């Protein structure tokens, strides 16, 4: 997207201010601002929607109505009203707090949550909507997501409150340990696709739900379950919300926060929720591809009808809608779990991670590898492989050199 957008903006700026000088620089700046703005708005608006949705879902689960007044029948504007209220609240800070760290902590969490979206693609080839396409996107997203723990630790420490400190301690222990199984689970799709590039991983699952990595093998299915559990834990959602745990720790790490700073923590939390859900959708649920082969991608009817330009972009946009829908469903699932389940105890959370999630993830990774090695074409349905089809159409394939062959086998699909 960066390159395409940059090319377009470059032309625009070149046409507008052609004489000012280095128009490439302007183009980059404009493209960067535009993309950052779009991502920021995506997180912020989805945060608004999620908070409203959470209240509405909680209400419905609890046999109530949820918000009904602000903004018409369904309380659409409830979040904005809440936000306005939070804006007007006094920004309190405990007297003994470390003022610098106390004030910075919410921004760090928000920054980590936002910057992980940088490498997250929203549609596949040939028009990948991604701010910065990285070869190691999976790794980058997980790495940046792990930084969110700093905001909680620093908030907990700098608040000069014992309850906050307890929350921070729990959070640090929990997030650091849950990164291990989370990474192990994310490795399975990486292995199957033979790439850490999220665009490649998503595109490798095109052609209907039977090609999703969720249904690749029983092992991949379990891996998805473990991934989602660990993702829930790493974004601090119930039943793993020990860092907040209002019935034990009052408010945990954000006990002493108020007003806008407090709401920034929640924006970061909802951003992370969305991030791990989108990541799950890309890694296991076919990403931007439909449940059935819709032919929106390259070589589909949409491109044949409208041409690669408009048709391709339209297909990518529809893919974006599909991806967001899948992510939204996963977020709703998280909300459902939150309002139904009691909270685990800290030692049980650790046991779940170290004694169950990590070994299960490791065994499933091994199982999926063996499955892929023994049944490269799947059990029932032949997986979609564009390159293979293309190669077959082109004629007999030349035998690659021995080393390359080994690399390919290790990388996944032949």
């Amino acid at each position: 997207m960066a390159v395409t957008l940059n090319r377009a903006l470059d032309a625009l700026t070149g046409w507008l201010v052609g004489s000012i000088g280095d128009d490439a620089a302007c183009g980059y700046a404009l493209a960067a601002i535009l993309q950052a703005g779009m991502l920021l708005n995506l997180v912020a608006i989805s945060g608004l929607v999620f908070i409203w949705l959470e209240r509405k879902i909680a209400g419905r689960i609890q046999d109530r109505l949820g918000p009904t007044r602000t903004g018409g029948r369904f309380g659409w504007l409830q979040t904005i009203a809440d936000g306005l209220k939070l804006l007007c609240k006094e920004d309190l800070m405990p007297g003994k707090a470390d003022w610098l760290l106390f004030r910075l902590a919410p921004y760090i969490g928000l920054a980590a949550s936002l910057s992980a979206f940088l490498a997250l693609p929203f549609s596949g080839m040939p028009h990948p909507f991604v701010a910065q396409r990285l070869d190691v996107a999976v790794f980058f997203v997980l790495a940046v997501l792990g930084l969110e723990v700093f905001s909680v630790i620093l908030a907990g420490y700098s608040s000069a409150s014992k309850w906050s400190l307890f929350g921070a301690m729990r959070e640090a222990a929990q997030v650091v340990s849950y990164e291990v199984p989370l990474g192990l689970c994310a490795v399975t799709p990486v292995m199957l696709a033979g790439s850490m590039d999220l665009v490649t991983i998503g595109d490798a699952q095109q052609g209907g739900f039977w090609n999703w990595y969720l249904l690749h093998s029983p092992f991949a299915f379990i891996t998805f379950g473990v991934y989602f559990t660990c993702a829930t834990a790493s974004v601090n959602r119930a039943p793993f919300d020990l860092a907040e745990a209002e019935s034990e720790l009052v408010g945990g790490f954000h006990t002493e926060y108020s007003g806008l700073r407090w709401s920034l923590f929640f924006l970061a939390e909802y951003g992370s929720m969305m991030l791990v859900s989108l990541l799950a959708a890309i890694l296991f649920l076919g990403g931007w591809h439909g449940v059935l082969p819709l032919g929106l991608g390259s070589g589909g009817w949409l491109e044949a009808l409208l041409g690669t330009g408009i048709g391709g972009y339209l297909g990518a946009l529809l893919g974006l809608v599909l991806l967001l829908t899948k992510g939204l469903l996963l977020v709703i699932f998280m909300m459902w779990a939150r309002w139904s389940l009691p909270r685990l105890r800290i030692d049980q959370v650790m046991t779940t991670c170290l004694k169950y999630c990590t070994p299960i993830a490791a065994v499933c990774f091994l199982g999926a590898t063996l499955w892929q090695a023994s049944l490269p074409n799947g059990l029932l349905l032949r997986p979609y492989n564009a390159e293979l089809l293309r190669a077959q159409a082109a004629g007999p394939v030349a035998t690659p050199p021995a080393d390359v062959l080994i690399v390919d086998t290790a990388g996944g699909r032949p």
Partner: protein
Amino acid sequence: MQTSVEDPRVLEFDVRTDEMLVNMGPQHPSTHGVLRLVLRTDGEVVSEVTPHIGYLHRCAEKIGENLAVRQWIPYTDRMDYLAAMNMNLGWSLAVEKLHGYAPPERGRHLRVIIAELGRIASHLVGMGAYGLDLGSFSPFLYAFREREKILDLFEQACGARLTYSYLTPGGATADLPAGWTTRCLKMLDEFEPILPEYHTLLTSNAIFVKRTCKVGVLTADRAISYGVSGPVLRGSGVDFDLRRDGEPCYTQMYAGYDFQVIVERAGSYPATTGAPPPPPEAVLGDSWHRFYVRMLEVVQSISLVRQAIALYEAEEGLDHGQPFKLGAKLPVGETYLETEAPRGQMGFYLVSLGQPNPWRARARSSSFCNLSVIGEIGRGCLIADIPAIVGSLDIVMGEIDR
């Protein structure tokens, strides 16, 4: 950081950890009111729990000495405000014992209906709030939804929803209105099929079982020596219920009723229809058993209310027992009577010098004794277990502080 070996029992390579004093409450979300617990913690492990009470003290007992016995009824409402009917009943029975008075049969059955409905409402709050303590929000609202229906019935009977002042010495302030029993039976018919939902959400939920089993184990000996009562005592396997084992002037209220004391006998509970069996992890006397006893008592109270309604409607005449006159003088003497309130033995002590108002009026609170075990069973558990234990004791601060 220094490594020092102060305690010879701590091994040499141990990193010295500092103990931390944490103040839980009185403004803590899960201490059920204004209870303050001072926790001495080492990391997440609690090495000492000290309850501090008195934040809700309102001198109710002293006020009782300056009021006529019927005037003190509203003050008993505010003791255990979640089971105000049962508080009214306790005081009324104590006064009636001093008078040597027994209400007419219709009034007796009316009291059973009201007292058992109060028990259901109280246990519903205890159940829902316990879910809340463990981080499960929705059961709380489900419980309140059903409690609202009981409160509606109470409102129709006496006009109030929380502090009823309905049962008074002599009987009740008014008879049940026309059609009330039909509505009550309809409510029970709707309520009974919902109970399995609570069991699914809490009793047999895997996380709930993990959080409550083997947490805060109170052995039967210890329970007796601390004087705990009610579901907490029966959860420890002690077969004791004042409705069966109390004084005659209280047990005669339940004469002719068919009910069993909810307690584990030979590894199984009575009246477990619809309830899941105890999980293998649970040990007698832990938080899970205390919760389970309450859930089963709700079923039992439903059956008691049904029996009582049948008996109430079968009674001839309309005499439900007239309240004593406000200025009527008390007989000289003293009396003490304990009743089985939802939270345990609620005792009222009364000394009279022949005035309309008692010379001494005292209350023995069940929650007070139940809370006193927290220092014993809360030691060595994790911080997260403290709300789980306090919730399973199901205390009401208004009753403790009075």
